[in-house]
């Protein structure tokens, strides 16, 4: 399984910013089935289903609404049935 590099995590409007700042999770959106379990589980409220997109599987994939809210706790990764997430530790002395 290849994990997408975090910089390429999202092609949404936040993409621009993502390239420059630290993105704590990477989302394999093509695999996401929009079940919403991660959204419900994230204690930071940092995730939502992207109603504006439909992936090839026919679902609205999840997206990270606010990278800065994310604590890299990996709860989302642990509850996700579709192994959508890769989670990164915040860089030491990163731009956060």
């Amino acid at each position, binding site marked *: *399984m290849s994990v997408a*590099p975090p910089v390429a995590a999202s092609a949404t409007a936040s993409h621009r910013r993502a390239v420059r700042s630290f993105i*704590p999770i990477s989302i394999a959106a093509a695999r996401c089935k929009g079940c919403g*379990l991660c959204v419900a589980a994230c204690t930071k409220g940092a995730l939502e289903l992207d109603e504006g997109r439909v992936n090839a599987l026919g679902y609205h994939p999840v997206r990270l609404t606010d990278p800065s809210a994310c604590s890299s706790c990996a709860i989302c990764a642990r509850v996700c049935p579709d192994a959508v997430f890769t989670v990164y530790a915040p860089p030491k002395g990163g731009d956060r």
Partner: protein
Amino acid sequence: MTVETRVDDQPRVLYAPPELLADRSTTYCPGCGHGVVHRLVAEVLGELGLGPRTIAVAPVGCSVFAYDFLELDFVEAPHGRAPAVATGIRRVMPDAFVLTYQGDGDLAAIGTGEIVHAAARGEAITAVFVNNGIYGMTGGQMAPTTLVGQRTTSCPNGRDPAFAGAPIPMTEMLAVLPGVAYAARGSVVDASSIGRTKQYLKKACQVQLDRAGFAIVEVLSNCPIGWGMTPVESIEHLRDAVAPVYPPGVIVDRTAPARGG
């Protein structure tokens, strides 16, 4: 698999999908717990370095497709017979790690005889038992583990114990057998349950490596489609209605304390 990282600040990967999980999307319904259990199995086998010597047995049930998603040698057993198939493997492949993966219809209904006797013989097998309280694959019929009152396509007015009996506490029943070295029940209700479940699975693998006997981990799981719920509702139901009937935890541990985890 390579995890590409940025050259500039090289963030450490805290969590990545396990290598033994195939890089394709599963055929399971959105929110289905099989996906979580698959991932846990892949993680545990990966962490123990068992992938290369595992021979796994797929059941008949939604998870028959496990062989499409776990990068392991697999044989597909007839419905319910995975423990017998695994016994056959066990007896001729002394160095193999032998894993079965079964649903509750598969293990607790048609396959009752096979699981009881593999357990009774104390086969050095690790059994993963995904209890979602329903026959997912065939369209949501009642399973032996279906809750009292729960509506399914084959008990449209809810399971009535007067006709269909009470839910079977399968793992507790198996735990009576001396051949069972280790039996535990986890769930997929939240991240910490999932974490505990992973520990149970790891222990159950270690039991096999130590040749201490038969090991089984029941995982309480959800079937949003079969239960007629959204994934999120199904997880809530799992936590609030199912888990109280099937209390998670270690059910029996007959391994020597020195060996235990």
